[in-house]
């Protein structure tokens, strides 16, 4: 299967890290739980880790040389497996549409005001086509370079904000005002899915690892570190701009970054911040398109996945312009449609696969005895 493609464990960690931060860190998700958003994130990440290590982990353990397309074919039969994989491709396409649309909204809101959507999306897709064309190894190496920049930027944002005298710690209290219920409500539909559940696409990527051991451990560690960053960002959002503005801002984290003002010297970091946030979203998009092209290759049996990059990019570009026409629609889809659409792909189908694996194993043992 693999054409001498090898990525190391650290590279896997890095791309998973970027992947989870994606647009999640800018959107300040979990805001439905008001000042308890950070608890919602922690709960969601615990569920995410369980989901990842148990369900995806089991699938990976028994099929560590196979892509998820082949896994589905193995357990559901070739035809049903291919049909399910095709639906997965459509799902990934739609998720990529949302991400590229978030990139566009963020860029036009804070960086290039007034630039037509087609230009931004065209340039973005051009870069993505190039990156995906080069293959996962190159993507992973690029991820390594940007990893340190991203971590450095996040740490400096946190530092600058604490030095800016804008923090009101009282905003965090009272903790659990309305009990655990709204917190879990905010975490469940959004969160198994949003940053932590979408890791299902890594089931297509694990096959390229140079070592099969310790993959799930690395992944869990990546989820853990992404959780720390997102939690800190969310807490900072709550203590600086307050719950009301989180609910009522297009990109709350950007509003927060605008508050940075260290003694009138370090200020106006928003363009830098947009770039940092874009980098992560960009990696997420690259992974998605890579996975799309790879699964089409595996479904059709064509030799090179590169043939599918340009058509996929064009479809994503067209849908993102035509289907989602406004920011309101985008937020509606990301908040209320995507979680429910994602649920079968990220939880139910993998769960069924795991059940089949376990049943087969059980039957196998039963036959032997």
């Amino acid at each position, binding site marked *: 299967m693999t054409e001498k493609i090898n990525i190391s464990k650290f590279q896997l960690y890095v791309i998973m890290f970027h992947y989870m931060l994606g647009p999640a860190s800018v959107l300040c998700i979990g805001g439905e739980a008001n000042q308890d958003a950070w608890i919602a994130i922690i709960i969601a990440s615990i569920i995410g880790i369980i989901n990842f290590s148990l369900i995806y982990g089991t699938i990976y353990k028994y099929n560590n040389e196979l892509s998820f397309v082949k896994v589905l074919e193995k357990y559901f039969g070739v035809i049903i497996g291919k049909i399910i994989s095709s639906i997965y491709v459509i799902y990934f396409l739609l998720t990529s549409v949302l991400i590229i649309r978030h990139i566009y909204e963020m860029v036009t809101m804070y960086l290039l005001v007034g630039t037509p959507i087609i230009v931004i999306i065209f340039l973005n897709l051009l870069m993505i086509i190039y990156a995906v064309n080069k293959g996962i190894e190159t993507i992973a190496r690029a991820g390594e370079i940007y990893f340190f920049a991203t971590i450095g930027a996040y740490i400096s944002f946190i530092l600058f904000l604490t030095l800016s005298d804008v923090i009101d710690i009282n*905003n965090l209290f009272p903790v659990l005002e309305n009990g655990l219920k709204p917190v879990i409500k905010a975490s469940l539909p959004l969160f198994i899915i949003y940053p932590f559940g979408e890791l299902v696409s890594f089931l297509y990527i694990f096959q390229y690892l140079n070592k099969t051991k310790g993959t799930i451990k690395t992944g869990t560690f990546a989820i853990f570190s992404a959780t720390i960053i997102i939690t800190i960002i969310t807490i900072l959002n709550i203590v600086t*701009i307050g719950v009301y503005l989180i609910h009522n801002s297009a990109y709350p984290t950007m509003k927060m970054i605008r508050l940075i003002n260290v003694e009138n010297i370090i200020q106006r970091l928003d363009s830098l911040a947009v770039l940092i946030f874009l980098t992560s979203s960009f990696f997420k998009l690259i992974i998605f398109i890579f996975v799309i092209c790879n699964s089409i290759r595996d479904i059709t049996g064509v030799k090179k996945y590169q043939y599918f990059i340009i058509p996929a990019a064009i479809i994503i570009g067209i849908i993102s312009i035509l289907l989602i026409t406004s920011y309101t629609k985008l937020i509606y889809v990301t908040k209320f449609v995507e979680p429910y659409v994602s649920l079968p792909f990220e939880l139910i189908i993998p769960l069924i696969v795991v059940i089949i694996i376990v049943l087969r194993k059980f039957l196998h043992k039963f036959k032997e005895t």
Partner: protein
Amino acid sequence: MKIKYFCIFLLPFLLTGCWSANELNELTLITSMAIDKEEDGYLVTLAITVPSEATINAPGRSASTVVSSTRGINACDAFRRTSSKISRTPNLSHIQNIIISEELAKEGILPAIDCIIRDDQLRPTSFLFIAKGVKAKDVLAINTSIEHSASSKISQMIKNAEVNYSIVNAVSLVEFINSLTTPDKEAYLPGIGVYGDLEKGNTVDNSQDVAPSAIIYLAPYALFKKDKMIAWLDDYTSKGVNFLLNDVKSTMINYQCDNDRYFVLNVRKAKTKIKVNTKGKVPKFTISADIKGTICQADCRLDLTKTSKVKELENKFQRVIKQQLQKTMANLQTNYTSDVLGLGGYIHRKDHKLWKNLNKDWEEVFKNLQYEIEVKVTIVQPGAIINPITNDDK
């Protein structure tokens, strides 16, 4: 070869820069904004920096800021209409102060605020003020010395006032919106006014005169209830509010020891803590202020070399401050019934179930709140001299 042509094809996309780039010579920087309410709509006034006069080596012959007012049916409309009067695109990202007229604040500040916070360029850290006694646009039109424009004067002045006298503190847009939107506290904004002759104040002469004809000053807080301004505080209460908000950095406390004779305490450090006891039927607040300072002026005879006498003086100051805080609280409760201190928030954070009950008629509860005030004053230094200067030995 193919790649070469592809690169050439890409060049126009990558080398032309931003799509709708605004070069610096097409932009004009707005440093302050004033919004007035008029009978038939809004009047938005922009303070525009004149680039050639804003430099350090400016000749100083003409004003460094130009003010432009435009009418419109709403704030946003009025702002856009300014384009008919300005030759360049206004850039809002450097706005430092936003001044809102008293009439507008009294009718409800929301229509003006929404337009401001919705803008992508504007920083949420800009300061908000209410114009006292004058129209908001008049404040920006005053020419100032020392600083090169009214805008920079205002933003420097509020910092100076915070550090040295603490009657008012700067309130940024994001702070204001937070207190406007949370149910457990009310908003407040510092005032700004003009002494003197408005007509003469906007000439270049005003910045060249030794005694300017008009000068901008900071006025005490304006109190809000929901989004409507209800009253102005006086200096005394405003300082009290600042004490209770734990916002005093340095100030003066006067204790009258004799007819026209004073002891003045220079507050170096002040820390106010508010605690609430929600165990009883009615929540009970404990306000404790810990104040450290030096003596700034001493007119009456007192032997400050003795610790007992210093202690005596400390007690006197304690009583003065306690009285000020008590009067402030009583004023807020009975005259204004505006919870600018966010006392509701203290209950909310401590006991959210109780707060849910009180929330409905918080105004009534606030009127009858019980509190206890403890003040502790420590004189850490007498100043450069010890005893009051006397001429007894003459």
